[in-house]
């Protein structure tokens, strides 16, 4: 850890937003606070209904963080993202049921299948941009759902049910709602952290370069096809793990869970939260998944209210709640002055 040169290069932020709210949002501890809230939530409310809603919301956060890699970081508009969740859910469900294995043992198979799915959707679309890409991904999402609807191995329209739980160790039952909620939260937190860290690495920067200007990125020696494929693959893996948790949560998978509306909702979470900013996307995902439940008192009008709220947010915050801001620490004054003067002379 002593090699972390960050300490010498990380002075006070210059030009960074200084309002109280921004400082709270930018603080490094915020992720831990969020995790703490998620872990303490069952102590506030632990009805089976509430746990069910919260678990679903956590899985939704995982999906949104995966789609944020594709759409937010790399700028590839994907309208069929839920297909990757379908691939993950069906792969783990089918294998776990056929071999009567706990779901954790299906992780390698899910990894292989989702990476393949990422390559299959990624490879033919590398040359496409924006609207054309959106149409192809939309098609891919629908093809996946319709295929699942018609194959015997996937159980047709009724899907597969009676899927085993994540794992069993003696009396410890991973399917007990509170236990499953905690497992989900920890897995999702790890994936969100991983996605955020990827975004701040060499690969994450390459994704942003491709998003901002593909030609300029190429001119700097960035192989844009490889970089885009990696975005698809990582997005697919995130979606696949969402699928495993989904299958374990409901112990059933059916094609109705993977309709276009689901893809649209995940995309909405990313856009609403702020594309490219993992913190914003987590909040966006929570709003999209929890708000309809909180509005349940409005009965028939709740989706109307939900829709209106989304429109209002987009009018006042067109970039989302919390857009990615390009700020980073300047160099310390002392260091800066001396070589800069040399350069100017």
């Amino acid at each position, binding site marked *: 850890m002593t090699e972390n040169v*960050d300490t010498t290069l990380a002075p006070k932020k210059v030009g960074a937003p200084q309002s109280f709210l921004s400082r709270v949002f930018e603080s490094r501890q915020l992720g831990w606070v969020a995790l703490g809230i998620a872990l303490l939530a069952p102590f506030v409310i632990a009805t089976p209904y509430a746990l069910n809603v919260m678990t679903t919301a956590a899985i939704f956060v995982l999906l949104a963080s995966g789609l944020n890699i594709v759409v937010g970081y790399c700028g590839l508009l994907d309208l069929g993202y839920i297909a990757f969740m379908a691939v993950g859910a069906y792969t783990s469900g089918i294998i776990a049921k056929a071999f009567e294995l706990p779901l954790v043992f299906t992780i390698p198979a899910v990894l292989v299948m989702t990476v393949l799915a990422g390559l299959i959707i990624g490879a033919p679309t590398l040359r496409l941009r924006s609207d054309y890409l959106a149409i192809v991904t939309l098609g891919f999402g629908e093809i996946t759902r319709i295929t699942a609807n018609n194959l015997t191995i996937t159980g047709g329209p009724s899907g597969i049910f009676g899927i085993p739980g994540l794992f069993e160790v003696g009396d410890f039952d991973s399917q007990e709602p509170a236990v499953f909620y905690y497992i989900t939260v920890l897995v999702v937190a790890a994936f969100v952290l991983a996605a955020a860290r990827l975004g701040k*690495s060499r690969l994450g920067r390459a994704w942003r*370069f491709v998003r901002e200007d593909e030609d300029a990125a190429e001119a*700097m020696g960035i*192989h844009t096809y490889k970089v885009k494929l990696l975005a698809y693959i990582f997005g697919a893996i995130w979606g696949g793990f969402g699928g495993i948790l989904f299958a374990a949560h409901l112990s059933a998978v059916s094609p109705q869970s993977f309709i276009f509306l689901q893809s649209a909702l995940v995309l909405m979470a990313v856009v609403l939260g702020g594309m490219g900013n993992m913190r914003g996307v987590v909040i966006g995902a929570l709003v999209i998944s929890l708000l309809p439940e909180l509005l349940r008192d409005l009965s028939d009008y709740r989706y109307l209210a939900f829709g209106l709220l989304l429109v209002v947010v987009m009018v006042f915050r067109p970039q989302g709640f919390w857009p990615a801001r390009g700020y980073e620490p300047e160099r310390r004054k002392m260091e800066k002055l001396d070589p800069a003067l040399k350069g100017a002379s």
Partner: protein
Amino acid sequence: MSAVLEVKDLQIAFGGVKAVDGLSFEARENEIIAVIGPNGAGKTSAFNCITGFYKPTGGAISLNGKDITGKRPADIAAAGISRTFQNLRLFPDLTVLDNVRAGMHLYGGQNWADAIFHTPRFKRSEAHYTDEAHRWLDFVGYTGPRGVPIRNLAYGQQKQVEIARALARKSGVLLLDEPAAGLNYTEKQGLLSLCRRIRDLGTAIVLIEHDMGLVMELSERIVVMNFGHEIAEGTPAEVKANPAVIEAYLGKDEEVES
């Protein structure tokens, strides 16, 4: 001094239009050469061929003796040619430092697993990227803010950052497409000294430029193009005296003289 970049009989046609028709030149280490010509002469098309954005329809381009004709831009950049663009092609929403880091993509030093687990290797390489970004910004004489999105900066500063980004690629050949366009007098003087400092690093510079004063002062050799053809090549003095060049600029010879 050996030739680093060799362009032989380069041709590119768009439909029936021959944008470049038989351009040949070579660039050597520690040398600044200029490609000039009236608007539409095919200078930028030639640059786009050399850097792989266009596939040449004829001719050969070789870098350090290796043929790079028709390869994809990323491979050509990796082989050792970096460039700037006629109209700025920066990454507008990213910070100044991130923009310069783009030129360092090929340094490697970390993979995705390092990034996810924040290994010491990752931290070392990130620190190296940041140091290098500052170093190149210092080198080009950039004094503006470095941690803010680049779209908020003045044009002259953006131009400096674009050159810093190209330099960070550490390639043997640097192609500058109209580096002085839109700069004021002081900034042009800064560019002049910067180009000389870049040359002294051992880099071969090929520049397209319309500012004749700058071209004549800076370049050791000049290639003149008109309508896709190469009409003259030589030292600034030779080119200035060449009747074909004077004709190409049609009465603009006063400007050439200035």
